[in-house]
């Protein structure tokens, strides 16, 4: 499937800058437009830009309906010459980065604001679940869980059977992330979590228990994409893109999902970046459920397929460990602000590479891997994406 034809053009000359997060709240009456607007305001203020300087915008949100990125331009007084709307959930961040990087390289836009934000009004999560996709309306929603817990429980169960992973192994990921989150100012879950507490949590959908699930919330994440020289001119710290991939609906013949699309393109990812898994200083996976983080660790090549359980047992996953993973605490501890969950890992990776950290800091981070996973359209997540980033210009 991969690497036919021409070699993919590189991502050089482009800067990722101004990582911002609108602090999460569990419930808020404010609509998605407010969260996205706040994120743009934070971008403008941190880069000292006026709204008119932003000539490209890329938006991801589940709760903008009936609006799209188009409506937002009028709502927020923007007049961009490049506009995109990416409905890819957990893959939105990396995919936005890929699109925006190409726009800047091609000269279609000077400064692209990539933003994801979602509301969480008291009833909005349930409303989203009932209308998520046609396939899920017909084939998943009627079977009782009312959301993704049921389908991910089945995926988790199948993974455990195939590779012998245990709940304790998943717990390693969740417990380490909670430790990372203790320093993240906007993390919603900051009560220390022990492995025993993880194991004793109430069941949600066997084998998924409470601490395997993210908490839906409201919030937004954003960053800017521009040419490196422009970032230097603006005095902004930035990160570089070494390589990036995306793949949708990979392995459609697998009867149940035990791998994601990263495996299809990963050779090209590492080749283009010119680095190896051992060179990576931190890995930011999409952690809607810990089993998906395990699949990313394997399918991106940090260990062999089926060996992620042993891998997480054999490494320390905290920010100060030998394999820093989801160093702000990930969605499992910070919260899942809708599509912003697909940006959280990427925005944190930019922070770690530029030195603009809010909480935990990985010492001497020079290369970060970020991956995304999104859209359980029926029985499996369809979108997968990954990027390798490197330090560009650090703060100060």
């Amino acid at each position: 499937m991969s690497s036919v034809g021409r070699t993919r053009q590189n991502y050089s000359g482009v800067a990722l800058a101004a990582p911002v997060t609108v602090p999460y709240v569990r419930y808020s009456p404010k609509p998605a437009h407010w969260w996205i607007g706040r994120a743009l305001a934070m971008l403008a203020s941190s880069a000292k830009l006026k709204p008119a300087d932003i000539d490209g915008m890329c938006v991801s949100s589940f709760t903008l309906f009936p609006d799209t990125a188009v409506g937002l331009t009028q709502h927020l007084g923007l007049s961009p010459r490049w506009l995109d709307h990416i409905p890819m959930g957990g893959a939105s961040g990396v995919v936005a980065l890929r699109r925006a990087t190409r726009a800047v390289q091609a000269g279609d836009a000077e400064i692209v604001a990539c933003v994801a934000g979602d509301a969480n009004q008291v009833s909005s999560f349930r409303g989203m679940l009932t209308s998520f996709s046609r396939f899920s309306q017909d084939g998943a929603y009627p079977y009782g869980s009312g959301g993704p817990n049921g389908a991910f429980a089945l995926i988790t169960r199948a993974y455990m059977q195939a590779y012998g992973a245990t709940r304790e192994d998943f717990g390693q990921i969740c417990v380490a992330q909670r430790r990372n989150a203790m320093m993240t100012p906007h993390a919603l879950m900051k009560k220390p979590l022990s492995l025993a507490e993880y194991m004793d949590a109430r069941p949600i959908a066997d084998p998924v228990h409470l601490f395997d699930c993210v908490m839906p919330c409201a919030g937004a994440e954003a960053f800017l994409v521009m040419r490196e020289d422009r970032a230097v001119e603006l005095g902004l710290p930035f990160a570089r893109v070494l390589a990036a991939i995306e793949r949708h609906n990979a392995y459609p013949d697998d009867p149940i999902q035990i791998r994601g699309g990263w495996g299809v393109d990963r050779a090209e990812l590492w080749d283009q970046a010119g680095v190896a898994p051992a060179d990576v200083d931190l890995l930011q996976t999409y952690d809607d459920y810990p089993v998906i983080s395990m699949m990313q660790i394997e399918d991106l090549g940090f260990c062999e397929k089926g060996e992620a359980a042993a891998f997480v047992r054999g490494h320390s996953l905290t920010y100060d460990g030998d394999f820093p993973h989801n160093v702000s605490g990930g969605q499992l501890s910070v919260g899942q602000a809708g599509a912003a969950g697909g940006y959280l890992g990427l925005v944190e990776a930019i922070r770690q590479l530029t030195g603009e950290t809010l909480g935990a800091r990985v010492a001497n981070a020079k290369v970060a891997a970020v991956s995304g996973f999104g859209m359980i359209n029926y029985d499996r997540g369809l979108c997968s994406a990954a990027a390798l980033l490197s330090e560009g210009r650090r703060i100060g």
Partner: protein
Amino acid sequence: MLQRCGACQTIAYPPRDLCGCCWADSLSWVEIDAGGVFLAETTLHTSTNVYFRERMPWRIGVIKLDAGPTIIAHAHADAKEGARVCMLARTDKSGQGVFIALPERETPNMADDKALRELTCDPKHRRVLVTDVRHPTGQALARGLVRAGAGKVFLGVAEQWKPFVGRDELYALPNTEVAPLDLSDADSIADLTSSIGGKVDILINTAQHMRPGSAMTRRDAITARDEMEFNYFGPLRLLQSFGPAMRSRGADGANSAVAWVNVLSVFALANWPAYGLSAASQAAALSLSQCARGDFAGSGVKVVNIFHGPIDDEWHQPLPPPKVAPEALGAGIVGALQQGLEQSFIGDVAKDIETRWREDPALLERELTLARLMD
């Protein structure tokens, strides 16, 4: 029933608009092999859905069908992970088509499974009103319901003082209670509703007024008016009195209201002039049942239409066989409830008419209306 591509034969699920394999615009719904393998299960403990919240824990699974697709389905307690299963498609309480994975072979008390019972209208432990037990069909049905373990069978009888054949044997059945009911009398229906309206889980309207005669073989509209009175206005009054209470109890505990059953002549689908005016009133009753489907939509109460040909009773005495025996019709109704069907054709004539109606309704109409000339 799943979609199959006419070009490449790939089976599609969930339903779609074009073949996901070759993009041909030739998907059609076909019966497929129901066998598959139960890949993985989960027991849900929480839900955002209020219906399921009350029914936790709830077991579901993912099944790889022999026919190709993977299906998320409700799981019968005897369907085991790793084992072969047989898929059954039914509508759920909301009216949504769903699948349940059943064990490949019959297991003891299989029908009592919690998940399966939510998808069927099994009379076991439920309270059933049969509206007319003067007729042999109502009697056979009442016996069948008692045998099937109904919690209570209310025996609807008009003009109680008038004796009828089989009365003593019927009244001696266990778990039955006589219910005075005259479908032509609104007061009678109202009285019965006020005494048992909140206790009926299944209502089966067996009352029918079938008389020979077409428009021009009769001289006036008196009999036709009676037919409309019993076959159309009777069920309408029943719906207006018993319907609302049943609709509000469609997901009420273990033995909720589950089914509204109309027993209809198959000639409701296409007129047979020999009983042409009765058939016209049956067509009205069929249309009423469709209206009732709308009223009950989403309530958890299924509207079940049972179609039959001429019954082997005194009003069809001159007709040659095949005729459906009251006993067979009663058993067919109980079976349809146990299986959770919303439509069932019982007897040879009804099945024959069903086949022809599905193939070509216009041709069926022509054949039935010209039948007299061909005698």
